[in-house]
């Protein structure tokens, strides 16, 4: 309260107390304050002490406000501020930066009040939960397009897989390199369609889920992942149903290495998601990429071993086709499923390096796109 006359402040406080009743609401108090300010201005203050008088009025108002609000006085508030400075992360006196050694009783007490967001892995769990819920929304969105939406949701992929399955059956009705043709076709079709659909889901940046990005925690990558998850779940379900049907007809059997098969199927999905993310990034800048990609996808479909194994092909052709990492993944997937077949052409090193590079490139694209003008979100 430097340079302010305490006697003047006390006199003003007394004056305002008299003007205010015990339970004066904010409106009445503000009116009293206004009158005090006006009266002081009308009384006139010499230039030298004008600010001192006006400040005295404001200090007096503060006294009254503290009385009404029940806030502590300056000294008590000072103590409170000191205490807060120990727990305020922005303060120089912050003491909670380092983990404090707690005795067992205190540790138990703190454990019960711990914020779930502090739990290790909570952020990742929440993100998975968000992606799963976005997927549910995507399903509802697609299924609500027409009356037989839910039926069509499964029927459409089912027909797709079936159509692709018939291709190897036409080429060889019984076996392809000792593998049952029907199962061979299902595996190839499910791998390719999962890749293609997850790629398209990611490439178009989320489609019907775009509006969900209005929610601040939802990021573009969540929406893309949810769309791609749709492909994974639907084609895995359709593939499992068809294999089940084939097993019932004694045309197929379960994979001899289910873990390996699941790994390569997931890798195939991640491959599609990453590739779609990269294409999405290019589409933002060069919309014409869409046409080139459409053509490229057709070439990729032929090169991905849907209807054949690379070991069947002439050396000259297989050496070119094996530049396609997807062919390697499909062949490893088939090797994991069929006892009769172990790929000799596919390279795990090639798949590893290509996948790592693509995933890394996709992540870089996402980071850059989040900062791209027009893509920036609040």
């Amino acid at each position, binding site marked *: 309260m430097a340079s302010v006359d305490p006697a003047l402040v006390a006199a003003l406080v007394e004056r305002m107390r008299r003007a205010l009743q015990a339970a004066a609401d904010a409106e009445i108090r503000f009116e009293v*304050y206004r009158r005090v300010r006006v009266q002081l201005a009308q009384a006139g203050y010499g230039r030298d002490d004008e600010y001192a008088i006006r*400040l005295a009025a404001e200090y007096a108002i503060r006294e009254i406000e503290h009385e009404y609000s029940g806030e502590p006085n300056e000294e008590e508030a000072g103590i409170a501020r000191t205490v807060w400075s120990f727990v305020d992360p922005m303060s120089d006196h912050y003491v909670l930066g380092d983990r404090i050694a707690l005795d067992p009783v205190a540790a138990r007490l703190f454990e019960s009040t711990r914020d779930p967001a502090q739990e290790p892995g909570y952020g990742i769990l929440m993100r998975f939960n968000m992606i799963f819920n976005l997927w549910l929304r995507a399903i509802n969105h697609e299924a609500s397009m027409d009356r037989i939406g839910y039926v069509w949701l499964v029927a459409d992929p089912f027909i797709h897989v079936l159509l692709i399955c018939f291709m190897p059956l036409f080429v060889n009705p019984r076996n392809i390199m000792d593998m049952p043709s029907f199962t061979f076709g299902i595996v190839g079709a499910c791998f390719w369609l999962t890749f293609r659909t997850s790629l398209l889901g990611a490439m178009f940046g989320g489609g019907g889920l775009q509006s969900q990005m209005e929610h601040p925690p939802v990021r573009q990558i969540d929406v893309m992942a949810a769309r791609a998850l749709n492909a994974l779940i639907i084609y895995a379900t359709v593939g499992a149903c068809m294999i089940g049907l084939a097993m019932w007809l004694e045309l197929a059997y379960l994979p001899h290495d289910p873990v390996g098969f699941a790994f390569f199927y997931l890798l195939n999905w991640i491959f599609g998601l990453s590739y779609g993310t990269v294409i999405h990034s290019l589409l933002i800048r060069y919309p014409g990429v869409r046409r080139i990609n459409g053509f490229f996808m057709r070439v990729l479909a032929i090169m991905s071993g849907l209807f054949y194994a690379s070991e069947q092909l002439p050396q000259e052709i297989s050496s070119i086709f094996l530049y396609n990492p997807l062919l390697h993944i499909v062949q490893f997937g088939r090797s994991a499923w069929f006892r009769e077949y172990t790929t000799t052409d596919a390279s795990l090193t090639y798949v590893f390096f290509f996948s790592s590079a693509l995933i890394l490139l996709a992540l870089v694209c996402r980071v850059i796109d989040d900062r791209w003008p027009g893509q*920036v979100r609040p």
Partner: protein
Amino acid sequence: MQPPIAAARAAIQDGELERALDIIRSGLADDPEDEQLALLGAALLRRLKATLRRKVRERDYPEIIAVAAALLDDEEAADSAAEALIGAARASLPAKEFAALLMAVSDRRSHPRIWKELGRVLHELPVTPRTIEKGFEILTHLPGNDAVLSDLADLVMRLRTRPEALDGPEE
């Protein structure tokens, strides 16, 4: 003299939406029955709100500040406009410019959030009589605010140690 609706339209055509809104408001204050002016005002408000939403999404800070300032008097959008304005200004401006911007906005519009924020950054403003007057004005909106009062007392003390500031040009 140009009728308010024509003046407002001219301001809109010049891209001065905030001025257009002010013209409409003062026109409606003079003649609350002017239906055309009320319709134009409602359409302009809708456009400003949509623009603000878009600009927030695009993180176009200067535009957010300009549009949000115009919406500070709108009952429905004032709170979110004040938040947007403060957020955009804090994100895009250094501390002193941020404080100067809030001071300029508070000269034209009054919103509790703006007063609170200005109270917090009062110490960033130059030591001038105008700043001190602004400090007293903040206290009329936030009576008894400890931080503002302490900053204001400090400003007064600093001004007294630089008496030339009383007569000299403002910083």
